[in-house]
């Protein structure tokens, strides 16, 4: 539904931190997107000749980042023009559970649902799945749009991820 060029246009993230490949489905309350993990991930560049399976597990917290970027695409659409010129940041998260590790060759499907929106803050929940099996559960993540200048150290805002 949103192909790679659309994802790139919707998010300010770039290599090596653009962690969504394609949006499969998006409505007003939920979004589903995919991230394919390959052996060419930049994080594997420093591995020596004898990498173990454990070395090749996709970094757990980047799975959260990929999920959050997915939710961010929906947040941006819901915010509409209010998001123009603003930076999307996550303020807090809770109840994130890891069920199993993800490896090259896995295609991760990110499912994010809007739980509620309060002023300029949106709260999302959902999970990450590989082959239909949950690998990560997201209890809740809060996200907000903030003007870039608020991030200046002299005006540190309440959200900063």
């Amino acid at each position, binding site marked *: 539904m949103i192909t790679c060029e659309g994802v790139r246009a919707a998010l300010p993230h770039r290599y090596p931190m653009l962690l969504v490949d394609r949006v499969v489905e998006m409505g007003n309350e939920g979004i589903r997107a995919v991230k394919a993990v390959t052996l060419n991930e930049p994080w594997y560049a420093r*591995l020596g000749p004898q990498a173990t399976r454990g070395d090749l597990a996709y*970094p757990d917290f980047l799975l959260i*980042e990929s999920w959050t970027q997915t939710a961010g695409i929906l947040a941006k659409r819901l915010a509409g023009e209010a998001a123009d010129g603003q930076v999307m940041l996550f*303020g807090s998260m809770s*109840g994130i559970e890891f069920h199993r590790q993800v490896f090259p060759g896995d295609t991760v499907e990110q499912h994010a649902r809007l739980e509620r929106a309060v002023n300029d803050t949106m709260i999302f929940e959902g999970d990450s799945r590989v082959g239909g099996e949950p690998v990560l559960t997201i209890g809740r993540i809060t996200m907000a749009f903030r003007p870039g200048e608020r991030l200046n150290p002299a005006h540190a805002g309440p959200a*900063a991820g």
Partner: protein
Amino acid sequence: MTSPVLAAPRPVREPARDEGSGGWSAGFSVAIDESEPVFAGHYPDFPIFPGVCVMECVRRAAEAAKPPESGELRLAAVESSRFLAAVRPGDELAIELSWSPRGEGWRCSARVATGRGQAASVRLRYRREAEA
């Protein structure tokens, strides 16, 4: 598992046991250099150290200071994380950790500060890895 963060946490306070609670505490420092690869894409012309990378620094510090009696631990959950201020290239993260026993596993709570004040708080939960 490989890490998206190059900088390694440097111990500044050796793990110490709190006899009252049975927990452990320790202190670490992480220098966030502008050469960290994530800055290239987060974001171009506007480098902010990603919140998940702050969490990664906490995790690596936590795992470098595991309680000696904990056995093999595996990350089970991020119970909570709060991000209070942006972390930028050149910042030095001061991480204060405290491990406490929690049921079958352990919890590690961390406070993260930069020179400008508190930047984040992170609470991780680990479960004991079944003996092979």
